[in-house]
């Protein structure tokens, strides 16, 4: 299966390392995959939040002032845009994997994706309310 056929007169092109900069679809794909870095970053941030919480009010205040730094805010706005790209592309792809058929009728992609988006908005609203209420 993995044997690569060869003939001396055939011409084979090799793919350059930066093959993906040549068109927008490929660039969008690589950017989509790189959003995982922002996901990992947030996990690190959440660890830092817990570390500050466990260490006491002074550590917490230090973290809060670090988060208020304009550079951090700008960085977080950028990270937020990245994460929105992750969420949107993820939900848009959900109908590819989630195929539900009722008889001959397949639930349209728009409904599957829409269901994901609805859940996202609902959960986000719940979290925001819990945060603001505290």
């Amino acid at each position, binding site marked *: 299966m993995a044997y690569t056929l060869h003939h001396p007169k055939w011409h084979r092109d090799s*793919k350059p*390392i930066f093959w*993906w900069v040549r068109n927008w679809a490929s660039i969008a794909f*690589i950017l989509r*995959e*790189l959003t*995982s*870095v922002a*996901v*990992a970053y*947030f*996990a*690190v*941030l*959440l*660890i830092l*939040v*817990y*570390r500050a*919480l*466990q260490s006491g*009010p002074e550590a*917490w*205040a230090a973290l*809060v002032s670090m*988060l*208020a*730094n304009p550079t*951090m*805010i700008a960085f*977080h*706005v950028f*990270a*937020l845009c990245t*994460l*929105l790209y*992750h*969420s949107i592309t*993820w*939900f848009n792809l959900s109908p590819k994997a989630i195929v539900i058929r009722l008889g001959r009728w397949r639930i349209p992609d728009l409904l599957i994706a829409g269901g994901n988006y609805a*859940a*996202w908005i609902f*959960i*986000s609203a719940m*979290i*925001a309310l*819990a*945060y*603001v209420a*505290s």
Partner: protein
Amino acid sequence: MNKSNDPFWWTLFGAGGALSAMLVPILLFLIGVATPLGWIDAPSYAAVSGLMLHPIVRIAAFSLISLSFFHWAHRFRFTLYDGLQLKHLFQLIAVICYGGALAGSIAAAYVIW
């Protein structure tokens, strides 16, 4: 045919991707943008502790952190293969990615409890 362990990592990738897609944007918005900009009043240390140190919230937070790391690990491994053609370094990349995710998860467990 060699039976790969990719299905295991892919399951974690999928779970981490779905969970992070649902939860992370709003959380980062609240913690990293809205509160520092003053759009929302910063909750007191006591209020945040009460919320986040609640056992169920701790379990949820650990799950989110760990699965996010494993989501990154699996996805970044393939990004290095596709984007930089580093597949020949597959052992090193696997150790760095999955090992890093494991290390991150252990750090999270240590800090949260």
